[in-house]
């Protein structure tokens, strides 16, 4: 079968030619890819690029997630996590509580701690700086990926500092990189409708690019599956691509499927399998200057995350559980896979599992030992 035999949708053939000659894809190409129902054809194109960049490698990471507070002044309609100030379900962890969480897992070979929270109106800037400094003191070997661009802009407001000074202060305390959240969809129409108080697209990109210029890597996301159009998705991706052309500091792009449950948009349907896989594939094809596309298995489940490995994704994130029994002692079934289960998913998909650190350096067995030696 010749490669064009893969395509049921003839409109994919010119895009195939471009992919083969490594030509940059246009806005129109992006729309064609999104509109096509030839899921396998789109996946095949994305897989060509993914294999060109990463071969059979599939990355995962051993990390710990920390959400220091859910109190948030933004009130975005798509969010089920944030609570307005004064809400009885709102919480903010003290620094001691945060450190306790870190200490609980010192015995595990964690290489990254991923920290995000709401925009708390009262916590002082020193809280954030001390959070980073204190965690770093407890676990010097770990990489801290903390505070989305939206939080950074909020911290700059609180501190009365410029973005650059804010980021420098946090970097000095031990911040390693920024996660990619808060980008949502850049369309002004969508932001007006769903998150009018949130940092503007320009502001989001400015934080990311300021970070890049300071040598801090960041990620980027897109929240899809609510009210946005296909054209608005493509424009979002192209804006990220243009920014990356300038500062080259984005590590990974992570499409985030919107989950309507418990949000103000609960009347909407869940995203479909087609949509989840296509968002990964189109991102891989349009974002030719992004090194990595991540399918976050916690968000889309292990079944789709496994398929994602042949639809453009090269990273399925982490939150692995080294040993299940202790975690099962709790009442809830843990949202986690053992390392063995994760490796099985990757290997069955014909890929080679590579444990990475935040900056996508491959971890070898002795690195893992080092990560463990943080234990006090």
């Amino acid at each position, binding site marked *: 079968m010749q490669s064009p*035999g893969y395509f049921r949708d003839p409109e994919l053939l010119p895009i195939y030619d471009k992919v083969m000659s490594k030509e940059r894809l246009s806005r129109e190409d992006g729309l064609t890819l999104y509109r096509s129902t030839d899921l*396998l054809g789109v996946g095949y194109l994305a897989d060509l690029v993914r294999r060109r960049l990463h071969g059979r490698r599939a990355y995962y990471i051993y990390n710990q997630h920390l959400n220091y507070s859910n109190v948030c002044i933004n009130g975005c309609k798509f969010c089920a996590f944030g609570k307005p100030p004064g809400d009885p379900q709102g919480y903010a962890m003290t620094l001691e509580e945060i450190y306790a969480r870190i200490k609980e897992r010192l015995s595990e070979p964690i290489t990254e701690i991923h920290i995000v929270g709401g925009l708390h109106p009262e916590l002082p800037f020193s809280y954030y700086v001390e959070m980073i400094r204190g965690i770093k003191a407890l676990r010097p070997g770990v990489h801290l990926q903390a505070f989305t661009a939206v939080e950074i802009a909020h911290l700059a407001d609180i501190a009365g500092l410029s973005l650059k000074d804010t980021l420098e202060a946090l970097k000095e305390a031990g911040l390693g990189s920024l996660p990619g959240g808060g980008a949502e969809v850049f369309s002004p129409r969508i932001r007006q409708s769903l998150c009018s108080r949130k940092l503007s697209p320009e502001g989001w990109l400015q934080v990311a690019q300021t970070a890049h210029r300071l040598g801090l890597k960041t990620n980027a996301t897109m929240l899809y599956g609510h009210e946005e159009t296909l054209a608005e998705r493509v424009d979002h991706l192209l804006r990220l691509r243009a920014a990356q052309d300038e500062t080259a500091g984005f590590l990974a792009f992570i499409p985030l499927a919107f989950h309507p449950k418990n949000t103000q948009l609960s009347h909407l349907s869940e995203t479909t399998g*087609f949509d*989840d896989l296509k968002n990964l594939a189109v991102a891989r094809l349009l974002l030719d200057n992004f090194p990595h596309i991540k399918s976050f298995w916690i968000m889309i489940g292990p*079944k789709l995350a496994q*398929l994602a490995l042949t639809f453009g994704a090269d990273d399925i994130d982490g939150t692995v559980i080294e040993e299940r029994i202790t975690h099962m002692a709790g009442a809830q079934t843990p949202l986690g896979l053992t390392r063995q289960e994760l490796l*099985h*998913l990757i290997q069955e998909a014909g890929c080679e599992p590579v444990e990475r650190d935040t900056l996508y350096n491959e971890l070898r067995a002795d690195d893992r030992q080092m990560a463990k030696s943080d234990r006090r």
Partner: protein
Amino acid sequence: MGLSIIGMEISKDNLIEKVWSGGRLAAEEAMALWELPLLTLGRLADLARTRRHPQPIVTYVVDRNINYTNICVSGCRFCAFYRPPGAAGGYVLSRAELRRKLEETLALGGTGVLLQGGLNPELDLDFYEDLVSFIRHRYGLHVHGFSPPEIVFLADKHSLDITRVLERLMGAGLGSIPGGGAEILVDRVRRALSPHKCTADQWLAVMAAAHHLGLKTSATMMFGHLENRAERMEHLLKLRSLQDRTHGFTAFIPWTYQPGGTVLGGRPATSWDYLKTLAVSRLVLDNIPNLQVSWVTQGAKIAQVALKFGANDFGSTMIEENVVAATGVTFRLSEAEIQRLITTAGYQPRRRDHVYRMNEGEGRGQKAPAHFLKKSPQLAIIARVGAHKDFVELGVKRLGGETYDTPFGKSNPVHLFEHQGLVFSVLSRHGEDGYRVSAPFVNDRANLYALKALGVEKILAWCAPGAVNSALHPGHLVVPDDILDEGKVGPYTFFPQQGLGFIRHNPVFCPQLRAALLSSLLGGPFPLHGRGVYVATSGPRLETPAEIRKFRRLGGDLVGQTLVPEVFLARELELCYAALCYVVNFAEGIKKRPFQPGVLFDGLADPEEMAAGRQVEEAFAGLILKILPTLAATPRDCPCPQLMERYRLRGDLGADWRTWFPSSNPG
């Protein structure tokens, strides 16, 4: 690149080439499919799917899963649903509970039930027959029931052979058999997994016997436990080989073992494995028409993606599911959600019945005429003079009525009624205000064309014949099952110049509609005869005594002027047609009756007999309203919708029936 399979080399390109060319895959070639990249394998399966089903249509069925008992002696290690006899939590579904489930099924627009249960030693064949008959005849639902282990269990329990058990269940109303209990059709695996369940050969023997009796069945495979890939392939090849002989499998449904709560435990098969197995199934099972996704085990997302890996059917809306749910895996999908998943994958959703036939008019792209009311009748009653007035008198909501210009002339007025949400039409053959059109001059073609154009699928013909068989008395109801055509005149076909219509007439009346009619009339106020040969004469005159003597010798039971050629023409339009006769007199010469001038039948019926006939006439509309829901709910899993299939396949007739006639412009 070469793939090394058990010592022999199969080139990947040759394998792809072979699939591309559409040839049957040998076992070792089929095994090599596993080694192809996922997207390549998916593409090949999609190719095979598109060849078999060129239309971008994905079907599904609205039905309910009913598990009549969870008590089971089988003790399969992969099952979290069953309870051993005597254990806590065992149940046999009560009639009240069953009734509630069936009513809910009808309310949701369901056309049938998937009926399965454990191997419960307390239940015998009578229980099963009652259960089937209750669902089939009381509720008019199709029964897709009893996987082979249940059939084998019953055969053993009663020392009957499998065919006899199947015949008895069919007699009770069983419509088709689900393909469950197949697990992996390799005895090594079965011994380890479910040692007390029927063997692979027994499973296949039940299916073969069912196919020989004309029962359609599906087939399943539960994989991802103790079996290896060679054993999965053995399973597929066994099915393929049986299907070559019987052609009775409608669909294949592979699904993954769910380890939660089972004795066997282990890790669930991945989506990768599921999609590969699905695609391999599509490519190997080149003789089984449909491939179904398992959203119950895979979830909505993977099920949707599976539509690109060879599947063309989304399974059932289920309403309830108990067996997989017992493992802790619960996915629920509404009909609207199934439609959304199909549509957003680029396909058109279509409801089907339990033997994978799409609702007529949907799959073939027919639409009710634009000038017609928004509501389309599914059922038509063709009856005597002014029949519609009886419904008006009963207060049934009349939606309208008009005559239609058809390629065969003007139709009689068609009246539309709505009763309890059900729309039906009524047409009087002989006129609205008195007997204006005598039997030989009724324009059957125009009337039937108009009904078909309105969306009618089923016709109940009401008529008033005389009794040739003296066991039938005036005032009795008869549902005839055959016809003796004695010298009718008039056009017998819609295709006089086209050489079409060479179709079988056994059974001449729709068997499903007849069954529904009988079941809904049983226990009513009038004596009922379930069969009878209707002798058709041309009229308008009544018959001579010699003619009646002749008809008796030939096996006739009734004589009349109405049903022919109406029934033959209805069949050419692929309509279901059944007749409900009420006897109005004894035919000439059966009883000695003097001539009486000036009255109907000139004295052939005495006043008492006339009164008995009138009683039925007066009850007509009420009787119809009573049986209407059952008739409407009866699935069309009869030969009727496919009577002209040969001509469609030959290309003589198009998919849209409106293109069948040279000057089709009814609007």
